[in-house]
């Protein structure tokens, strides 16, 4: 029974990801006083891409061909770590917060390799930029998670969520606020949203993630798009689980699970709205300012870790 529910959680994350993407685009469009495309549009995009032909540059090697699959595989594993309605993920184990960070890094690594392998100039540019952003984002990511882990005295995500569930909402601690701010900035950087990267840009020189996938087409592109959507959804779910998990089910009853699902949907909707607001309201940072942005995130997360020692909460 536990297995079924965990499997359903992971599938919810994976299959619901394009929907999250679609809702974000729709909300952004509404904020910009446009009608916007339907929220199911990413699904039809994915199906369309799956039917198309997969064109491969003649100079590329096998890396180019397997990178999308590796990326999707790694991201799907990440989705399996993160709980949605039930405090324990499918692949939960001790120390899985490190696994989470490094599975994401693994996928990103192969995507960058594939971009290099594609042989286009923009692929190389995007990959090198992505390397900069992700190397700088790794520190705050790990430190913020570590800070919460120290507070919760658990090194696995499920344990941390379980601990947070027992805290009262009003005991806002400095550590949590700092870790949340830092993790939010990391989420923006990792998933390639504003102000780090504009996901809807068509100007190649301003791209980071999009530049890496310029050479891909057909099913490979579908896999990559799906992977980035799953990554976004998983990280949002991680934010919700670590900082606002109240409402998660505590027993196997269908009623509680249904209620937990509704709570989760509401929280995701809230986060989506905030994300859309940020994306519509902030200008993209120039590349040399991105290290400053992530440096602030690093400082905040380092402070969070230091505060776990000072604040006995």
């Amino acid at each position: 029974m536990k297995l079924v529910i965990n499997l359903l959680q992971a599938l919810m994350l994976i299959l619901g990801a394009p929907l999250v993407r679609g809702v974000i685009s729709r909300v952004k469009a509404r904020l910009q006083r446009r009608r916007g495309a339907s929220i199911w549009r990413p699904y039809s995009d994915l199906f369309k891409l799956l039917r198309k032909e997969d064109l491969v540059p003649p100079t590329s090697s096998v890396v180019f061909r397997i990178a999308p699959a590796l990326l999707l595989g790694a991201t799907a594993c990440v989705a399996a770590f993160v709980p949605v309605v039930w405090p324990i993920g499918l692949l939960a184990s001790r120390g899985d917060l490190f696994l989470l960070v490094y599975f994401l890094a693994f996928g990103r690594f192969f995507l960058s390799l594939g971009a290099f392998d594609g042989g286009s100039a923009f692929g190389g540019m995007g990959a090198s930029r992505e390397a900069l952003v992700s190397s700088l984002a790794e520190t705050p990511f790990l430190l913020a998670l570590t800070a919460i882990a120290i507070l919760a005295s658990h090194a696995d995500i499920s344990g941390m969520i379980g601990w947070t569930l027992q805290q009262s909402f009003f005991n806002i601690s400095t550590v949590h606020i700092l870790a949340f701010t830092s993790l939010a900035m990391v989420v923006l950087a990792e998933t390639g949203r504003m102000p780090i990267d504009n996901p809807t840009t068509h100007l190649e020189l301003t791209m980071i993630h999009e530049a890496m996938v310029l050479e891909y087409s057909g099913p490979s592109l579908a896999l990559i798009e799906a992977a980035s959507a799953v990554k976004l959804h998983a990280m949002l779910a991680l934010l919700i689980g670590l900082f606002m998990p109240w409402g998660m089910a505590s027993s196997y009853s269908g009623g509680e699970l249904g209620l937990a699902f509704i709570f989760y949907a509401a929280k995701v909707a809230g986060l989506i709205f905030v994300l859309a607001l940020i994306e519509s309201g902030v200008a993209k940072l120039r590349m040399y300012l991105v290290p400053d942005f992530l440096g602030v995130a690093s400082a905040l997360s380092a402070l969070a870790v230091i505060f776990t020692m000072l604040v006995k909460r």
Partner: protein
Amino acid sequence: MGLVAIATSKILSSFSVFLFLSILLLAVARRISTNVLLFGVQSAVITAEVFATGFQEKLAEIYVVAAMVFVIKVMLIPRAFFVLTKKLKTVHDVKASTTPTQSVFIVAFLIYLSYAAVQSYGQEVRVPEDGLAAAVALILTGAFLMVSRRKALMQMLGLLVMENGIFLAALLTTFGMPLVIEIGIFFDILVGLLLMGIFTFRIRDTFDHLDVSKLRRLRG
């Protein structure tokens, strides 16, 4: 009035967190208007804390002080800054001498220092450690802002943040000094700001810029 009591206790236990966040954001804000807004938010948090203290200690004087803080520091001073910025027609950039990353690390270190300082004196006075550490951190951050920001307006703002810290320390440890003295202190701050405003105009008129790091004619 159970709800008010709950709100009061929650405010008193968590206000220092928001003050820390405000000074961290002050370290990275790059436009004068953002800085002034953050100062306003910081003063609003302090006002809430003063009201909460007044409710808990049941002293009427503290309500008056809270009202003064609100009117002067949340409404008057930010508005005066905005008017001044517009009249001076100055560039919005803060002209910091440290990058945002460096500033945040420095402020983080200052926060750590203030906790260390409060640890040694915290036993002498029966004060919540977080609040006193927040006050000392405000003072240190105000000094840091005055030193590292090269615009005259930002030096004024650093001074105001420092005054916020001192006021908060006074409030937390002594629940306010005699009312007359508090009023006198506020009056002093207001007149001081007025004079500094006059001087910024004079600096702009004589030097054609507001960069105080270039005011180095007198040396030795």
